[in-house]
């Protein structure tokens, strides 16, 4: 606990110190902000490590003047399990950000002013949209104050730590709101770009609508249990089924909107990419997981529900996974694609946790244990490889000045370290050996197979369908990752900026390398991952935890196979080197079927790579909107083609709904007359009404 308070202190100190140097001392602000972030995360890691190694729980209580609230903290294994990725990613992000924020202003200046549209070009609607899009992809030009950024960054980690350790409903909500607000300010970092601000507003709206459900949950929990202390929530275990189900649904919607579960994910693909890359890493890798934490923590107070709770989670999970990965394949913005992949991974985690709930309710304890382990391990792994990929995408942006896949290309040559690390992250997220992604998915498959092969009839049907769908998702992740690597890193540069791309410096490189090493380490030592997950499982399902502690279930075979695989690769490589001899390999142009003047504009683009899967597999509602690519006649004039894949749920459900709501509510605009005496009248009449109400009671 002492180390945790030290971490709180350091984050708070960093947040304060970073604003002191002001506009002139950007370097000092960055140094102070990131150093205190790094030190705070180190302290936090020690605190979390102590809990995970030693077990047990520590609590701290201090009265608070807020009615019903108390500054009550509790650090147990489940909290420590969620603190682990938070501090690892937070540390890597602080290191990464130290360079990213420092250089961002410089590189933007060096690129010079954007080419202005001339009259004839701007008449073309398609062209204008394209250029605006291009500008958005390049980010804003104005040099920012990094000090404020570091304040929000440190406060974000601080509030996430509070969310995970809070043991009082009011404190939890307070920390939850702080987390939402600090991340909102980080999302609108580039506030001179209309898209970034719009993404920020969508995020703020979505997160507060979700928070409303959480308020409803905590208020009813207080009414039912008599207090907002988590310790008293044990009383909720005696609830009747309908009441408990209602509370569960409140939790699911409230936390789901933050976690980005389908269909409440609509803000996520806009908001995560808009933030600076290390913040995207923190948001996508960790912040969405705090919602999973909240769901698990508060679910653990409810009675063990009926099977349909788990079934609901599984259904939402698999739909989200399929939808997320399909949308990820259609995005040409590399960070947007990664954000959709977060929707997919949250779907997988939800699927695993739902299967755990369902199997536990149905009494299949082995399957439940595997599912819980799979969900928790995947959660930890996803934090590592998704933040690695977001930071890698940030380095690509930093090097090539664009987020557009079609304006990158050939970056592996120019940024070899970043390229290698992105490939590592890509392998990990595609669940390929020898990286950690496979371990979590292996457990999820094991759980589904365990009940799918044992049960007959309809009970066995659903797990088996899910295995097939999971395999389909796995194949699609491979499409998305080979697309990002193949279009951004491989081939010829697709823009002049990409041709001049430069490698990231050591802070960014080492932050990513550390995450990549952790990904590899997880793949080589899966038993360790299982142990860590087993610790967290003790809080949720003691039966499953003892089962997972059994050495018979240890996945050490997977680690052995990963080592064997590395051995096979080395042997094959050695053979190749031997056959190749010591002579330098002659280089020639890529075979172009005899065409003499190949240009990079002829190479396969991000859209063409997914054209076949899109036409063969995706639902037509996801079809991207294309504009004006048709050429007519024998000597067609120059044409431009634009391609956009907006979120169908946002476009077809939420936008029309909110437009309708805005129309309805515009009738109330008259109330807001802008005249002081009218407002005073409102206050007066409200007070009178309240007095009547109090008098009635």
């Amino acid at each position, binding site marked *: 606990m002492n180390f945790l308070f030290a971490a709180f202190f350091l984050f708070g100190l960093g947040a304060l110190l970073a604003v002191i140097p002001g506009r002139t001392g950007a370097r000092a602000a960055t140094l102070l902000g990131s150093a205190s972030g790094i030190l705070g995360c180190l302290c936090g890691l020690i605190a979390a490590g102590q809990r995970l190694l030693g077990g047990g729980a520590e609590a701290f209580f201090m009265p608070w003047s807020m009615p019903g609230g108390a500054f009550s903290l509790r650090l147990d294994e489940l909290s420590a399990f969620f603190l682990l990725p938070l501090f690892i990613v937070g540390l890597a992000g602080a290191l990464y950000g130290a360079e990213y924020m420092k250089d961002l202003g410089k590189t933007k200046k060096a690129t010079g002013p954007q080419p202005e549209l001339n009259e004839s070009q701007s008449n073309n609607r398609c062209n204008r949209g394209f250029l605006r899009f291009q500008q958005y992809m390049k980010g804003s030009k104005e040099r920012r104050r990094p000090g404020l950024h570091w304040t929000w960054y440190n406060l974000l980690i601080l509030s996430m730590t509070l969310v995970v350790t809070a043991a009082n409903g009011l404190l939890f909500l307070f920390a939850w709101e702080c987390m939402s607000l600090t991340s909102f300010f980080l999302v609108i970092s580039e506030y001179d770009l209309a898209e970034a601000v719009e993404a920020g507003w969508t995020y703020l709206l979505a997160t507060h609508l979700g928070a409303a459900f959480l308020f409803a949950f905590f208020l009813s929990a207080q009414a039912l249990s008599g207090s907002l202390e988590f310790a008293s929530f044990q009383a909720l275990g005696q609830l009747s089924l309908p009441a408990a189900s209602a509370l569960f649904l409140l939790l699911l919607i409230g936390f789901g909107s933050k976690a980005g579960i389908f269909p409440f994910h609509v803000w996520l693909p806009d908001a995560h990419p808009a933030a600076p890359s290390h913040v995207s890493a923190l948001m996508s890798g960790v912040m969405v997981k705090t919602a999973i934490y909240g769901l698990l923590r508060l679910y653990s107070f409810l009675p063990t529900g009926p099977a349909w709770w788990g079934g609901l989670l599984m259904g939402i999970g698999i739909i989200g996974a399929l939808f997320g990965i399909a949308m990820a394949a259609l995005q040409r913005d590399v960070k947007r694609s990664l954000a959709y992949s977060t929707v997919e991974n949250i779907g997988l985690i939800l699927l695993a946790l739902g299967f755990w709930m369902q199997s536990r309710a149905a009494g299949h304890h082995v399957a439940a244990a595997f599912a819980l382990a799979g969900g928790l391990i995947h959660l930890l792994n996803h934090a590592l490889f998704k933040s690695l990929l977001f930071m890698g995408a940030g380095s690509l942006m930093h090097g090539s000045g664009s987020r557009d896949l079609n304006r990158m290309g050939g970056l592996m040559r120019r940024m070899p370290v970043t390229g290698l690390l992105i490939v590592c992250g890509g392998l990990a997220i595609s669940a390929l050996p020898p990286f950690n992604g496979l371990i979590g998915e292996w457990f999820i498959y094991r759980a589904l197979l365990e009940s799918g092969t044992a049960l007959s009839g309809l009970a*066995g049907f659903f797990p088996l369908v899910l295995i097939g769908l999971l*395999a389909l998702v*796995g194949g699609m992740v491979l499409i998305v990752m080979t697309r990002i690597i193949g*279009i951004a890193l491989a081939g010829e540069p697709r823009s002049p900026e990409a041709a001049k791309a430069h490698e990231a410096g050591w802070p960014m490189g080492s932050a990513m390398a550390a995450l990549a090493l952790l990904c590899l380490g997880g793949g080589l030592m899966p038993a360790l991952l299982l142990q860590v997950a087993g610790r967290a499982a003790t809080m949720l399902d003691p039966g499953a935890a003892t089962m997972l502690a059994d050495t018979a279930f240890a996945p050490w075979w997977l680690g052995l196979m990963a080592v064997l695989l590395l051995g*096979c690769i080395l042997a094959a490589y050695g053979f190749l080197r031997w056959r190749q001899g010591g002579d330098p390999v002659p280089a020639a*142009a890529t075979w172009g079927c005899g065409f003499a003047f190949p240009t990079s504009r002829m190479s396969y683009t991000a859209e063409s790579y997914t054209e076949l*899967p899109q036409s063969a597999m995706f639902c037509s509602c996801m079809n991207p909107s294309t504009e004006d690519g048709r050429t007519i006649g024998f000597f067609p004039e120059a044409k431009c083609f634009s391609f956009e894949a907006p979120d169908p749920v946002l476009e077809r459900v939420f936008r029309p709904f909110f437009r309708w709501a805005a129309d309805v509510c515009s009738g109330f605009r008259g109330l807001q007359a802008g005249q002081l005496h009218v407002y005073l009248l409102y206050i007066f009449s409200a007070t009178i009404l309240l007095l009547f109400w109090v008098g009635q009671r």
Partner: protein
Amino acid sequence: MLELFLHLLLLFGLSPLLSGVIGKTKALFAGRTGPPFLQSYYDIWKLFGKGLVISRTTTWVFRAGPVLALAVPVLASLLVPFGAIGAPLSFTGDLIFFVYLFGLSRFFTAAAALDTGSSFEGMGAAREVTFSCLAEPTVFFCFIVLARLSGSLVLSTMFGSVLNTAWQSAGPSLILVVACLFVVVLVENCRIPFDDPNTHLELTMIHEVMVLDHSGPDFGMILYGAAMKLFVLGALVVRLVFPGTTGDVLFDTLLFCGGMLLLAVVIGVVESTMARLRLLRVPQLLVGTMLLSFFSLILLLR
């Protein structure tokens, strides 16, 4: 130890023969003499001795493709039984690892193809990842059928002696599984009707176009790796069709080799009598196979 030795011997020694047999069969249908049975061995040997030219655009990813294409089938072969010879390595849940292992070589083959910057190779890569994505659920459904029948999640047991009784108790399911796995063998090894290993027309082919820029030992490793992949996946089908064992190692080995050669002949017959499907029909056929494999599972669920 004997199993490991036999596995590696059969895999390294016999795998290139399959494409020779397929070639001979196709030649027979076409009324030609065809290349000799050992042609693939000559090709691979010749390529290993040749020099290497690589594209200026490429990076280490391009060189990693062939390495993975060879390393992955070798490791995967250790997880499957070759006929009655059990798998040298097996653990509970190895079927999941088996499927994802091939994903690794696909990842690098596709990345290596895109690394050349050629749009032909990009085309091939896009097709390869799409078709494999659709084939993956089929593999899982087929494995689940066997897992249900054997009550085990170990490939070696699933394809073990339990098959003898399973053919009597669940014949229809197993017939469907054999058919589906055969389709998977065809699509994963780029055979007609999914891909034409002979054409060098970029618009019609998948795998060949992806390896267009590889040469010398690199290309030799790709050919060898492709032969091994056919051998490993084919071994699953052969084991299903010939589940018996004699108890004698030598005779079992011969039975398995005979089965593999028969499989090669069947592939040759399919290639000679069928035309290549139109590209947009391929996903439909794959989805159909997926449903068929799921149906074989439904038969067991009742």
